């Protein structure tokens, strides 16, 4: 028997009761958790403001804003990287388009159909999660040595590497029983397959879809392990340029370029989390 409603009221009461109880008895595990959490957050976030300071300090090796505050490094950094930033942007959009064209039907299939080989298909898509990027890159070069100059391998490598994340985000959204039931209702109301996709399915999965698109975009923008072996002077991505800045350039310029890179990536990361992306990373 279904007892949906009485739980709604009950759980509300439970939550407030729980809060009361916690306020009265501080729990040592939670105290440790709080300490560790703030430590982890500090560790994760501290580099960001530091980056800002270094990138705007005239002569960092001498200390904070030694030689004064400057935007010169940022200007210089942008001048150095903007062609690569634009290339990365174009590459990310290409990867996104291919991922979507290939991954959406695959996610649909995995979410909606029980067919022999379903597990095998899922495993195949997830192979790149287990194969180090360097091995994927090497394999692509060995298989298609002539295609490297065209930049096709770069696209192929990134598509293969990002596809599992797209499918892992979309398939659970498509598999929701409530969505399937809504599609069935729409069907009894006379909606054709295309109408159901447009008016029911896509609106229902829009946040998962958006999260998947942003995720693929950020992964592609920041991809290094595969790209490092596949790039050519004409097809050079932003992270590759970042790396050469780390190896060869002044720390201030490196910081400035990193800051420019983060401006592309961090807002996207926050957006993913906002879209309920905490499940996404578990792909």
């Amino acid at each position, binding site marked *: 028997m279904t007892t949906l409603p009485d739980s709604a009221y009950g759980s509300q009461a*439970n939550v407030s009761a*729980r809060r009361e109880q916690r306020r009265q008895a501080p729990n*040592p*595990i*939670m105290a440790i958790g*709080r300490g*560790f*959490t703030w430590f*982890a*957050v500090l*560790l*994760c*976030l*501290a*580099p960001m403001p*530091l980056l800002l300071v*270094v990138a705007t300090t005239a002569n960092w090796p001498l*200390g904070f804003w030694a030689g004064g505050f400057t935007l010169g490094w940022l200007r210089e950094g942008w001048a150095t990287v903007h062609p690569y930033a634009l290339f990365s942007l174009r590459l990310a959009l290409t990867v996104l388009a291919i991922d979507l*064209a*290939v*991954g959406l*039907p695959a996610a649909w*299939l995995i979410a909606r*159909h029980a067919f022999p080989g379903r597990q095998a298909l899922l495993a*195949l*898509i997830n*192979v*790149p*999660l*287990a*194969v*180090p990027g*360097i*091995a*994927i890159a*090497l*394999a*692509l070069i*060995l*298989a*298609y040595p002539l295609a490297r100059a065209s930049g096709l391998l770069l696209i192929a*490598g990134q*598509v*293969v590497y990002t596809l599992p994340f797209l499918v892992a985000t979309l398939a659970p959204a498509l598999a929701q029983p409530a969505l399937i039931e809504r599609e069935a209702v729409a069907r009894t109301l006379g909606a054709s397959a295309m109408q159901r996709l447009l008016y029911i399915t896509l609106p229902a999965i829009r946040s998962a879809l958006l999260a998947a698109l942003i995720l693929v975009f950020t992964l592609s923008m*920041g*991809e*290094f*392990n595969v790209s*490092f072996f596949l790039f050519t002077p004409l097809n050079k991505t932003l992270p590759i340029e*970042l*790396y050469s800045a*780390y190896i060869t350039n002044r*720390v201030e310029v*490196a910081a400035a370029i990193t800051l420019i890179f983060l401006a592309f*990536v*961090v807002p*996207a*990361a926050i957006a993913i*989390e906002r879209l309920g992306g*905490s499940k996404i990373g578990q792909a």
Partner: protein
Amino acid sequence: MSSLAMPVLILLSLALIAPLVILLRQSLTGEGGQLTLANYAALVTSPAYRRALLNSVLIAVSSTALALALCLPVAIYIERSVSRYRNALAVALTIPLSLPGIVIGFFVILLFGLTGIVPQIFLLITGERQFNFAYTFWGMLLGYLYFQIPRAVLVLRGAVSALSQDVIDVSRTLGATPWRVYLDVILPALSPALLNAASVSLATAFGAFGTAATLSRGFRVLPLEIASLFTESFQVERAAGLSIALTCLTVAVLFGLGRAGERAQR
């Protein structure tokens, strides 16, 4: 139905399966083109590669252990506290997920490099640079930890949120202290997730290249050796052999711990 699977099958067979098969064939080829296992044997026979393999395992295992120890309380706190900052904390801890390894390496340099903030502060206070360990094992360990934290937190948060509050409350009413609840109820319930988080962290650490490339000055790990074999000495077959070996190691860890996790769930 099969028409929906076609695009993905074509793409993956061309861009993944065929290349991996060719990589495998190359790894089994000797210099004269004969069939050989020498490229794999090098992992044991060559001191440099043996060292790199051991280093890879050492840093992966120690960073994973640290990440789990740090992130379990973090996950419990984020999922179960009523702090009004918990959402912000959760978001902050997912940001490193989208950072490439090289940027993480650079962060370590900014913090603990020769001109990093911590050594600079020590210079100001004590007149001497200290803790400038960015380019040592410890710097790499910190970098690895940095990219493992968000991954471990995500996996563990999922499991903590699935814990039954009733079970915990019942154990409290049966007389268990918070510590006993933690040890006897929460930890056993989370052990599959811990194994899962460990496998994800280890796999990521084995394949990590960017962080190592940015920070390594002498502490060589397997991906670095593969890269230099390929880009500097052009020993493609050996590079292929080591890549396949690294892949097998990663897959073995993912599967082994994944199976253990499934067993723990039952």
